[in-house]
């Protein structure tokens, strides 16, 4: 269950408490996030919406260990990541986070299978085991027959599905998706959202999604809006535009 009041259970998968993030632009200090609280349980599918500059991406960066907060704490599966060193945070990301990007960010000189294999190179799996994991991940996203295709031989929707396969191949604790449908046509966007739904329902993944697309957000179990640096739940957020 998703909560934003800071009173979630201590065994939540993701627990955010009093999160502040300030940026300095010249002499001006900008408060992006202010005392933000969030609890997400395993298997939740949460969409974050909000106007541009509201801090959605900043929040995802913080949850993914790509940025450090000015104040507050983030605990994921019992690990408090806010005080981890750079090296530890990198290793933590490899184990716990699957990233799905708007622009797919596949490496153009590697095949679909080689792109998907990237996170597994950091594990101790044998070549045969890695191959097996890659095949499974690509089967899940429906691209088992495109393993040896290069990104420029795939459509945008297929590229994004390869990106999703790369995100899930190492079986991370949760997935962070930044506008995964932002660069796709409606049909491909629906396919991607259906795939994310399946990952939650069939594979018990936890998915946190940032989107501007209300249709995409509707597919999530919970929609949260970022307003003035804090999160408010979907239905209580009247007047907040996406």
């Amino acid at each position, binding site marked *: 269950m998703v909560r934003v009041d800071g009173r979630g259970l201590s065994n939540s998968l993701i627990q955010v408490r009093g999160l502040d993030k300030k940026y300095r632009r010249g002499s001006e200090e900008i408060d992006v996030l202010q005392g933000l609280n969030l609890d997400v349980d395993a298997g939740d599918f949460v969409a974050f919406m909000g106007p541009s500059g509201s801090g959605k*991406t900043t929040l*995802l*960066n913080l949850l*993914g260990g*790509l*940025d450090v907060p000015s104040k507050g704490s983030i605990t994921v599966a019992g690990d408090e990541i806010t005080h981890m060193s*750079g*090296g530890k945070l*990198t*290793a933590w*990301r*490899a*184990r716990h986070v699957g*990233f799905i*990007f*708007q*622009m797919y*960010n596949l*490496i*153009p*000189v*590697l095949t679909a299978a*080689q792109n998907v294999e*990237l*996170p597994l*190179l*950091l594990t101790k799996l044998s*070549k045969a085991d*890695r191959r097996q994991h890659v095949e499974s991940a690509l089967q899940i996203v429906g691209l088992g027959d495109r393993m040896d295709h290069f990104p420029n031989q795939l459509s945008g929707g297929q590229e994004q599905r390869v990106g999703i396969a*790369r995100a899930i191949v190492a079986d991370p604790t949760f997935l*962070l998706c*930044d*506008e995964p449908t932002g660069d796709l046509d409606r049909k491909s966007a629906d396919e991607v959202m259906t795939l994310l739904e399946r990952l939650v329902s069939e594979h018990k993944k936890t998915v946190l999604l*940032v989107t501007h697309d209300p249709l995409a957000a509707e597919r999530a179990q919970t929609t949260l809006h970022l307003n003035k640096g804090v999160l408010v739940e979907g239905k209580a957020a009247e007047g907040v535009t996406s």
Partner: protein
Amino acid sequence: MKYARLVLSNLFRKKIRTTLTVGSFAVALFLFGLLAVVRGAFNQGLEVAGADRLVVVNKVSIIQPLPISYKERLAQVPGVKQVTHANWFGGVYQDERNFFPQFAIDEDSYHQMFPEFIVSNDQWKAWLDDREGAIVGDDLVKRFGWKIGDRVPIKGTIFPGTWEFNLRGIYHGTRPADDTTQFWFHYKFLEERENAYWKGLIGWYTIRIDDPDNAVRVAKAVDDMFANSPWETKTDTEKSFAAGFVKQAGNIGLIIMSIGAVVFFTLLLVTGNTMAIAVRERTRELAVLKAVGFSDRFVLFLVLFESLAVAIIGGGLGLLLAKLMTLRGDPTKGMLPFFYLPPQAIMLGVLAALAVGIAAGIFPALSAMRLRVADALRRI
């Protein structure tokens, strides 16, 4: 090994750019190889100088002669085992472009003094029997297409007139750096023909000593012996003597070093710029690698390896071409005493290529290492 695909794939990302950068290294190292050959040719005397040989010249100048009567006295200096002498002839074959060193040598002792030059016994004997005979190095024979029995006219520049010699023998070197472009003939022939001016005079002596550690003592003893005489001497090791000759042609080492430094500096700029562009183009990809868990250090080595791979492939290719060129033979047709790319120069070239590869790649690699993922992706 599991990272090989990821690492190598970057090399083939921009094939034309990689080819051009590899080509820059190949051209630079090819040039380096040729410069090393030329430098080696000039310093050849230093490399092959015998540690136990001293050269005795006139104290005033090397072009001033010494009396032949010194030979017996030199042989009696404690520590001296052998003595021979030679004269610089300074002639040309057919025209001035065909210059090579000609020495009027002492037939009784010269061969024993320089055992690194091999002449068959038959040819040596044939030469001894012919006062107008000559023995020449195999490179010189190749240069002019001579053969045993040929009559070779040499136009004297110091000793006037045309001197005709019968080619009686060909000598070979035992080491790659041995000079096989020399032309030897009988000192007695020179003395006979230049009786009026050159009787009893030689150009310089070479002496062999019993122990290289005694070189300083023996040299001093020789020079002291002839001090205050009309023909004072200056004795030095063969290596110092050869170095003096090289200096007469200018500071060849400095010239070659200067050219090499400019070439490598230009290469550094070209490759550094290429690597900086390559990293800038891949900012998002590098950020993604970091996001999925690759360490900063891995990203550093990824970029550095790319730079080093270009350096090694291009540098290796250039050095290989330079080596193949030397193996094909001397394109100067014997103008240089030898045309050889020694293993030390190849090793130095590889090290230089590696150094440029590291220097060109280190700053882009460091900037890739320091890349902040959140900034690079703008949005995750």
